[in-house]
């Protein structure tokens, strides 16, 4: 079996960070906060987090925070729960959570929880179980899990459980590896994994592996790396 060429991966990640003018970089400018999380976590796993300038990253992150406490995907972009989590994750990675007002961020997340326990992505109201996971994960990192209504959040997630044991983005939504990762993750953090039909879901997840060995996100779809990653984590 081959070995991971770690150095090449590190060089690639650092080069992407610098190439702000490439087409890919521009078209994804609005989600640079997510990109930062993925890239920096990868560097950290390879033990190379010190190759980036911590202060530069931290000050850029803080410049993306809004009055509401939420973070945007890049400077000038509106706050959204997606980028708020990435921001908190990156700060936690650098052990710099002390630079942020934890309660302010928590309040932003709390303000996004709806009556039925679900979470909106931002003030415009899009609801998705992805946001449930993001909210729970974020306040969990900040040690403020008790500030959201955990019971209702869990009830909402369970209401998105389907005939195959999987989860969709909203009640009645089709099971999808990505949503399953988010729902299982949220239930794990809140200690509610007993509410999952483990055997049924486990079987559905195993069936995502196709003959080539790759993993697809839903039945009768092509395999891809994103689904592969989400599935491996969800299967735990």
């Amino acid at each position: 079996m081959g070995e991971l060429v770690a150095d090449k991966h590190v060089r690639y990640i650092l080069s992407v960070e610098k190439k702000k003018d490439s087409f890919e970089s521009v078209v994804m400018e609005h989600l640079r906060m997510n990109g930062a999380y993925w890239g920096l976590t990868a560097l950290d796993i390879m033990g190379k987090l010190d190759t980036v300038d911590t202060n530069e990253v931290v000050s850029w992150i803080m410049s993306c925070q809004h009055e509401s406490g939420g973070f945007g995907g890049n400077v000038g972009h509106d706050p959204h729960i997606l980028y708020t989590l990435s921001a908190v994750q990156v700060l936690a990675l650098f052990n710099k959570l002390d630079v942020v007002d934890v309660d302010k961020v928590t309040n932003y997340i709390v303000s996004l929880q709806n009556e039925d326990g679900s979470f909106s992505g931002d003030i415009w109201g899009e609801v998705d179980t992805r946001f449930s996971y993001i909210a729970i994960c974020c306040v969990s990192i900040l040690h403020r899990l008790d500030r959201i209504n955990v019971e209702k959040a869990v009830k909402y997630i369970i209401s998105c459980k389907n005939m195959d044991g999987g989860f969709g983005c909203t009640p009645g939504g089709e099971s999808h590896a990505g949503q399953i990762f988010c729902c299982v993750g949220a239930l794990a953090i809140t200690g509610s994994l007993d509410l999952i039909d483990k055997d049924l879901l486990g079987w559905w997840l195993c069936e995502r592996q196709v003959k080539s060995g790759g993993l697809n996100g839903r039945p009768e779809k092509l395999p891809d790396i994103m689904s592969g990653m989400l599935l491996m984590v969800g299967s735990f």
Partner: protein
Amino acid sequence: MHGRPRKPLKEEDESVLSAKAEKLRLLQSQFLANHQNRIYSKEALDLSAKLLENNPECYTAWNYRKLAVQHNLSQSDSDSVASLFDQELKLVENALRKNFKSYGAWHHRKWVLSKGHSSIDHEMRLLNGFQKADPRNFHAWNYRRFVTDLMKRSDEDELKYTEEVIGENFSNYSAWHNRSAILSNLLKRKAEGFSHKEKVLQEEYEHVRNAIFTDPDDQSGWFYHLWLIDQTVKNDAPLLVSSWPSRGSTITLNGHGNNRLHGLSLLNSTLSGTTTLPIILYFNQAVEGINSSTVAVKSEILKEDLVWKPLSVNNSSTAQVWVVYLKLGNMELQLSKTYSIEITIGYSAGIVSSNGYHYGYPSQIAFELCVQTAHTEPVEGQYPKLTSWKDSDFQKVDHFEESNFVASTDHHIPTTSNWCREAIDEEITNYQDLLSDCKIGKLTLARLLTALDLLSPEHDKRKKHTEEILKLYTELMKLDPTHSLYYKDEHSLVLLQQITSSEESLLPHCHYYKDATETNTSYVCLRLQNLLLSRMGSIKNLLWVQMLDLSHNELRSIEGLEAMQLLSCLNLSHNKLGSFTALGPLRSLKSLKVLNISHNELGSHSIDTRRYLCSSPLAHTEVFAWDRFEILCGSYSATKFWEAFLIFESLNLTDLNITGNAVADENFTSFIVKVLPTLKYLNDEEL
């Protein structure tokens, strides 16, 4: 994009792309400036439209559009309001053409629709056209759910739609899924025409048969079929399926001392010096609301309300098993007198399952308690002897004597309608040929046969299909080795169900354990070694067990064991337990004294895949005794031992065997001895 290989760019392509990037960057920075300064002029709006048509993922631009609409609404007359929104819809259409999976685009459309100025009928027409082109797009299905809700389209109409879509292409998992969701809804609220579950399921079986026979390789039909089987077999309402003590049993206790009971031990038990008696209620699914208002316990020996506890591995308030402990030591029980205890479950509403169904009808259990003088007095300060698990220490049980030996297995199971059994029977007949050669076919047959056996009453002498089912799973392990662990688990469950289903089948596995110190008493051990068990099951039939030998199997988990509240001696040696978190269920076993976990894989795996299944400081549901832990750890690396600490800190073991595990080095061994102050024997040696 899926399935496309990456190719390095050619030089000409690079410069084109570079120009494109520059244009986009300019567009985006101009947009951000407009947004920042709240400029909503026509020019600014056109710019944002251009941006979104190029890059629909730029979420801030969708927000901007909404702000612009709100701003311009206040300044326009009623005529132009509709066109204002039409403009937005047109933009979404263009954006979706660029990327029909754009969350931002779909949500913007929902936002526009919810304002109420657009034609919903037009939306449905557009949607139908879109879904014809891509019937698997889940954004479209979600949007459909939104629109049909807005126009209050009936579930019945939507059900017909799924039928149409499936009719065009049977391999439409999305359509089958939606069908299951709509049907569940109709069945749950007993809508007109859907109040007879049987009739509905009958039709569904016919529907899915067409799909499966047309293309047996496609998964959609099979998953739906599995759901149908589950709907046919399951009992929505929570029910009590087992208890200890069981209905009509007599529990005999040995009393030591005159009137004051110094200790009680169950007849034929290794328990001694204990003064609590558990009462265990085992339901068919997880429930909440078990308390003194919903469960009444009547007896002359009880003076106060009892507190019922849910037995769940992670401190949840819902559980399939509930227990209460009678503090017999505090009661004044007279020798040779029989006390009766009556338990009424569900005498008032409040017991609810996690999917909202209430306990059906009140059920009752009554049993008797009797105290007799012990044959021998226990010697003060006497050490318990080292438990040996050798064959020579066991003697087969010829026949069962006491009625409190084995829990009765048919508690309150309502007679299932004949239709369910017939439906499953028919499925087996219909699919017999199809099911024989492919993997999913064999699995479905195994599941159908299991369902059939489940629906047959326990006392039915008609031959059960256990052998056939076991054979199918064994074949599946060879046919589909990547999923062999799953088949192994199912095989274990079926085997355990067979063994524990009756006294006759249990008898060969029951042995007396001879202990020389108490000559007149011999405890019964349930011996289940060498059965290739990879998981436990049928625990509802094993609540009476005090001594259990599960050695020489392939157990990776002991989930369910937390219900075995009488367990005091447990042998798990020579299994495949790979982490301390897998031993989580043991934490609930307050009576456990003897534990053998030698020759497992504790410490062999660097990653614990079970970590989140059990309580841990990471799961936020546990109060972790950090202080005591740190003191006991001393200079050792804390992370190495905290899982073990979590398991053992609440147990009162007298005998522990951990040899043959990678984790059991000197450091660990001395740590565990400190955690267990009651320990007398370690690794078969006296401490």
